[in-house]
């Protein structure tokens, strides 16, 4: 399948002998494609393309109440730079995203390697690991928040039972971030494992056979055959998980609420709070989302370039 079909100068109905397309294609066939794409493209334009452009515009205005807008140029950005809360959210987002991408990529490769063997109940295991992907993130956060509750949660009940104390999971800021990362892994690892599994099955077994004939151990085969051939798939997982990591919001909302004292407040929550909780600061929040947008866009581009060079080398 080609991504970009070259636009053909002649329509398939014209027999290719140079009759101009407009004359041979009936009017209804010339009009039809526009009508077919119209509803979808209209929604794209109104709810995605225009807002994306307008976001830059809004970030140059200040609205202390959400109703009136006053042009302030780059002042929202300079306010962001001076805002400790913004830096805390940016740092937390970076920490979360890095940990999430690294751990989820490693875990899904590991899990996919286990599931790629000929074992009994493989389909069942796959379904089990996929289950959290289906659940509402709100519910996931809610359940884990309850399990990690200090006094009456399942986690501490078990720990108390084996005499390991009762850590304040969601009260200590480092532990809370650990829990957030863990829950993100729990939710998403099954999804990325599916992608890796599909990639593993695309690897020609003859490479492994050749390596085995040369006496390579299973670890050597993993390092020198599986990982390099899996690179395009791994790149997809890294990019998707990175985008997901920078957008994390909903499960954290019900898990920690961004606390304790903002320790798990990530960028999207920061943007949400400045835009929809009083005092309403659309401009400032928009400036934050422009920063987030550029970060994701830049990192995705870097990822492509890096892998492109690796693949070419």
């Amino acid at each position, binding site marked *: 399948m080609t991504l970009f079909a070259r636009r053909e100068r002649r329509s398939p109905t014209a027999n290719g002998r140079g009759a101009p397309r407009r004359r041979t294609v009936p009017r209804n066939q010339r009009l039809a*494609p526009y009508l*077919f794409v119209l509803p979808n493209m209209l*929604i794209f334009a109104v709810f995605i393309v225009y807002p994306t452009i307008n976001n830059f515009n809004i970030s140059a205005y200040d609205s202390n109440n959400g109703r009136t807008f006053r042009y302030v140029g780059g002042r929202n950005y300079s306010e962001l730079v001076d805002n400790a809360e913004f830096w805390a959210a940016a740092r937390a987002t970076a920490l979360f995203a890095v940990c999430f991408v690294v751990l989820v990529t490693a875990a899904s490769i590991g899990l996919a390697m286990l599931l790629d063997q*000929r074992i009994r109940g493989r389909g069942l295991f796959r379904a089990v690991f996929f289950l959290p992907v289906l659940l509402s993130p709100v519910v996931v956060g809610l359940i884990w928040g309850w399990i990690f509750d200090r006094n009456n949660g399942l986690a501490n009940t078990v720990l108390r039972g084996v005499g390991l104390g009762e850590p304040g999971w969601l009260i200590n800021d480092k532990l809370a971030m650990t829990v957030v990362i863990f829950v993100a892994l729990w939710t998403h690892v099954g999804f990325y494992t599916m992608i890796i599994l599909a990639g593993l099955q695309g690897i020609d077994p003859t490479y492994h056979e050749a390596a085995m004939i040369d006496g390579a151990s299973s670890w050597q085969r993993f390092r020198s055959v599986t990982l390099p051939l899996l690179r395009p798939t791994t790149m997809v997982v890294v990019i998707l998980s990175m985008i997901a990591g920078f*957008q994390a919001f909903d499960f954290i909302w019900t898990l920690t609420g961004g606390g304790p004292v903002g320790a798990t407040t990530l960028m999207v929550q920061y943007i949400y709070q400045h835009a929809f909780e009083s005092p309403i600061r659309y401009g400032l929040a928009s400036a934050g989302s422009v920063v987030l947008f550029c970060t994701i866009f830049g990192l995705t581009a870097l990822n492509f370039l890096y892998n492109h060079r690796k693949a070419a080398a």
Partner: protein
Amino acid sequence: MTAQATRSKTRPAGTWTSTGDRRPPATGKVLTYAVLIALSIVVLAPVVWTVLSSFKTQAELAQRPPTILPDSFGLTNYTEAMQTFRFATYLKNSVVVTVGATVLTLMINTTAAYGLAKYNFRGRNFLFLVTLGTIMIPLQIILIPVYQVASDLHLVNSLWGLIIPPAATPTGVFLLRQYMLGIPDDLIEAARIDGAGEFRIFLRIIVPLCGAPIAVLTIFSVIWRWNDFLWPLIISQSQDKYTLPVALAQFDSQLVVPFNYILAMSVVSMLPVIIIFLVLQRHIVRGIASTGLK
């Protein structure tokens, strides 16, 4: 994915034919099972624990140490949450939004995909590029300007506001368009010669051939819309417009609804997607394998 499934079906369990899948040493295999079973417990335990606890009374939930099984499997938590705390309304809203948005998604995504896949027209490649580009722009990043558009169009605090804006999924257009490229043009030409109109060709020939990608998109759309949170959170401003996830999040944080009811409604929110998954599991796995989309 499918090839794998059929391969394992035709081959008796426990035989290792391909040298690529040489029988692992016994200890390695035991370790594999141990790790997989341990991880399965980590995945399943919270869900099972939630389902069991959703039948408990408030007093049972507060008990220390907690009991594993509830005293009875009566449905009082479910019925009371529905009646006393109006969860029936939120459930209804969620169903209306999920069904409405999915139907709309299927209609506009299939037509758009067909237009992009099977016609030559000015601006086609540009529109396809826009489609690809919008995949990379999630709502979270353009929250404020989208909200303003919705507000200008009077979509705030209405279920239409939850149905229309997310319905044009770029992933759906992409998925269907790639599939439709594989449908031979001759089929369409033959229908034209027989005098079929353009829309009739689409409806009678193209749509029936696209069963697989339409199934995949249906599943994805249901999961997306049913579990959506951030967009409904800013659009549903009065309680009677809440969807299930919004109601759960708001009432849990404000502690207005007893936790046993929250748990029961959490289980209600899990059920439809789990049922759909079990019924259409094969399509989901194939869809992810072929597109890498979420």
